[in-house]
């Protein structure tokens, strides 16, 4: 094992680690003999697609496995302690005290029943590091360092009273409470909006540097890891692909797999000619105001979607982009305004729409897991719309299902009788697409269809959608928060903020200045592969703020 930083002493060594997971009665390997060395104060990025075993390996560094997993081989040495040989009580003594963990979703990982400060103090008090009063004082100090607003007061809130980005920082503060030697960051910013992500990344980077804490930073986002890590280790299906110093890795990946990872962002849909003036749009959103209860979530929004065109609706969580989709589908009748389909107004409530009107507009959901009935086989999942709308039955129906499976590049014989649980994430999303296609619609709403997927898989989905669009003359409304996706697939862009359309136009115009300030913020917040990007960005923003 290469020792890249001999200047600092080694903190953690994993040798030939094997981890297995149980599915039904058999144990199958998750980590297949990975080595890992971490020095004091060093940040190691672990990168890979879902299923690569990043989290499992990260947790193994704490001597911890999730239920249904076991470490079946190798050694784990943390600062001279053999974690595998140690008793559970000894390991417990280390966790939270010397090795801390920051989870992906702070909202889910904070206990909803306790105040933040109670959860902060728990580890230091229970491990006997400080008294409760000291811990509370310390919490305020760390909250301040994590640049949380109202550091004196925020700890006395319950998790649900604090926003996602703040929670993630509070969790990092909590991990720091005992001033551990090592923190495992498990995708700490994945669930956040890009603009929020910047602040969290910056806060994490600073505090790790301040306390000279070693960290393992787990993520699937290359651009993020580039900002955070000193070294990067790439994992693929439980095996190490390669490991290198961050800059080396970015500049010159050795392995093919790493190269494909790096290459992901290259796909772009060819620029489409502008739509002729006077063409009737497939879907036209006209001055729609809508909302739940008293509050308006959408405020007078309008945009058109044309045949064979993709309109990307971009915005952060809470901007109203999903609500717009609900208005179009008729789930949420608008207070004011109308939806026109092929120039004719659609009934506001889906229950009033004709079967044909329902057929014409289909939807693909973000979470294929919840969008596909887990108890139905693909045959029924895909076949049902065809049976319902087109009246297909028997052989004709089966043939249609097989055609659809072909279209989404799944082998019919193998898949037709599977359950969703027997599919991978990308395959599930393809089924979602097939189900939409089965209705032979004119218009499809794609709600964050790629955001839950690994980049390579997402890429495949985007290409498929693109191909289907040309093949069937579809109009797409593409809801996303990911500007990379916009770049690759959109023809037109609608930027939303707080329920309003702040900017709209052809894609090319959108990515060229001058921007609306919000679009500018959004664009600039997308991490780039440059390891210095975050530093530069923060410096620029600070400078701008200084000027303003």
């Amino acid at each position, binding site marked *: 094992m290469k020792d890249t930083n001999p200047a600092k002493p080694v903190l953690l060594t994993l040798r030939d680690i094997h981890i297995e997971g149980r599915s039904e009665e058999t144990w199958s390997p998750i980590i297949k003999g990975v080595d890992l060395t971490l020095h004091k104060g060093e940040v190691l990025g672990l990168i890979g697609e879902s299923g690569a075993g990043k989290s499992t390996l990260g947790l193994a560094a704490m001597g911890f496995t999730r239920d249904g997993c076991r470490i079946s081989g190798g050694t784990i040495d943390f600062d001279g302690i053999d974690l595998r040989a140690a008793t559970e009580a000894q*390991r417990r003594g280390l966790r939270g*005290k010397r090795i801390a963990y920051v989870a992906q979703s702070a909202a889910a990982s904070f206990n909803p029943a306790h105040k933040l400060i109670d959860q902060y103090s728990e580890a230091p008090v229970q491990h006997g590091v400080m008294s409760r009063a000291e811990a509370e004082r310390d919490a305020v100090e760390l909250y301040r360092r994590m640049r949380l607003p109202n550091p004196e007061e925020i700890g006395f809130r319950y998790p649900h009273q604090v926003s996602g980005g703040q929670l993630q920082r509070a969790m990092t503060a909590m991990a720091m409470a005992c001033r551990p030697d090592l923190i495992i960051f498990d995708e700490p910013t994945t669930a956040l909006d890009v603009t929020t992500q910047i602040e969290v990344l910056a806060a994490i980077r600073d505090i790790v540097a301040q306390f000279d804490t070693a960290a393992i930073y787990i993520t699937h986002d290359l651009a993020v890891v580039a900002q955070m890590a000193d070294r990067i280790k790439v994992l693929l299906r439980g095996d190490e692909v390669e490991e290198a110093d961050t800059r080396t890795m970015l500049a010159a990946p050795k392995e093919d797999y790493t190269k494909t990872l790096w290459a992901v962002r290259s796909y772009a849909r060819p620029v489409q000619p502008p739509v002729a003036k006077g063409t009737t749009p497939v879907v036209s959103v006209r001055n729609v105001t809508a909302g739940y209860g008293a509050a308006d979530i959408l405020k007078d929004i309008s945009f058109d979607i044309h045949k064979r065109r993709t309109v990307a609706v971009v915005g952060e969580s809470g901007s109203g982009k999903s609500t717009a989709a609900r208005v179009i589908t008729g789930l949420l009748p608008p207070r004011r305004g109308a939806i026109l389909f092929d120039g004719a107004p659609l009934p506001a409530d889906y229950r009033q729409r004709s079967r044909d009107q329902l057929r014409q507009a289909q939807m693909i959901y973000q979470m294929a897991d919840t969008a596909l009935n887990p108890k139905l086989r693909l045959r029924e999942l895909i076949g049902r719309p065809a049976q319902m709308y087109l009246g297909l039955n028997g052989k004709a129906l089966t043939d249609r299902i097989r055609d659809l499976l072909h279209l989404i590049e799944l082998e019919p014989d193998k898949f037709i009788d599977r359950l969703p649980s027997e599919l991978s994430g990308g395959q599930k999303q393809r089924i979602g697409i097939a189900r939409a296609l089965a209705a032979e619609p004119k218009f499809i709403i794609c709600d964050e269809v790629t955001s839950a997927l690994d980049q390579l898989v997402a890429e495949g989905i985007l290409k498929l959608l693109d191909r289907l669009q040309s093949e069937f003359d579809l109009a797409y409304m593409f809801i996303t928060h990911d500007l990379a996706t916009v770049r690759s697939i959109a023809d037109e862009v609608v930027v939303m903020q707080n329920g309003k359309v702040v900017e709209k136009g052809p894609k090319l115009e959108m990515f060229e200045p001058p921007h609306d300030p919000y679009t500018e913020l959004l664009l600039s917040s997308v991490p780039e592969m440059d390891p210095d990007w975050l530093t530069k960005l923060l410096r620029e923003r600070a400078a701008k703020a200084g000027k303003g």
Partner: protein
Amino acid sequence: MSVIWTMIAKRLGLGVLTLFVISVIIFGATELLPGDLAQNILGQSATPETVAAFRKELGLDLPAYTRYFNWLFGALQGDFGTSLANKRPIADLIATRLGNTLFLALYAAAISVPLSLLLGILAALYRNSIFDRTVNAMALSSISFPEFFVAYILIFVLAQSGLFPSMSRMDATVGFGEALYRTFLPALTLTLVVTAHMMRMTRAAIINLLASPYIEMARLKGMKPMRVILKHALPNALAPIITVVALNLAYLVTGVVVVEVVFVYPGLGQLMVDSVSKRDFPVVQAVALIFAAAYVLLNLTADVLSTLSNPRLIHRK
């Protein structure tokens, strides 16, 4: 907190409506029962004139709705009337028995609730261990025996050896300690009957949460398993546990007629059954309403407590 007050007000309103509907249902059902009070008290041998005279005296000759509304208006003014059968004021009739019923219910609850929580927590902590499976099997066995059978077994084991009295006779002279001693067997019987349900729910509610990220977080903070369960899982599992506890408490108040019979315990259940069989309709109504009110109030309490246990509902953003 205004959330809670709104909820309480709304639920109380619904509760009153529920009580009203129940009083109609119970009245209707008693009306549908074959025979009536006059005939029941006088017996088969009574001549029709005797029965008619008695009926008139009791007001049973009036149409059903008149009797119902007479009763309802009386009840609305706090006057539950007198028992048709023995002329005693129903309030007197019920007062001591209600006290007894509540005493036994609280006694059984005081044993069974902590016990089932403890067993449930331990079973969740040592899930799938021998301990867990044994407790589970024992709990299931105990609920699969009919109550009176459990009672007989306890009498055989604990009363015939002279440890505890086989009858739980209560009167005004019985002191608190003595009362606890005398009602130990019925309380234990009820404990065995209700513990399994609450214990299983406690266990399930906790285990249900163990896959939550915040439980993993607690474990990754190096917390001991017991602390993880008590401090992290339990507070979030309270709502379903409280609900099932409330259901069982309601059962302890309303469903214990069999235990009352076996242990000769003067509670409301026996009064209800006797009054139904004698068609003593005002008493049936009064007891049914007490039972229904207990159910409504316990459910309301459970909902309030569940809400209080959930910071998301009381501390708005």
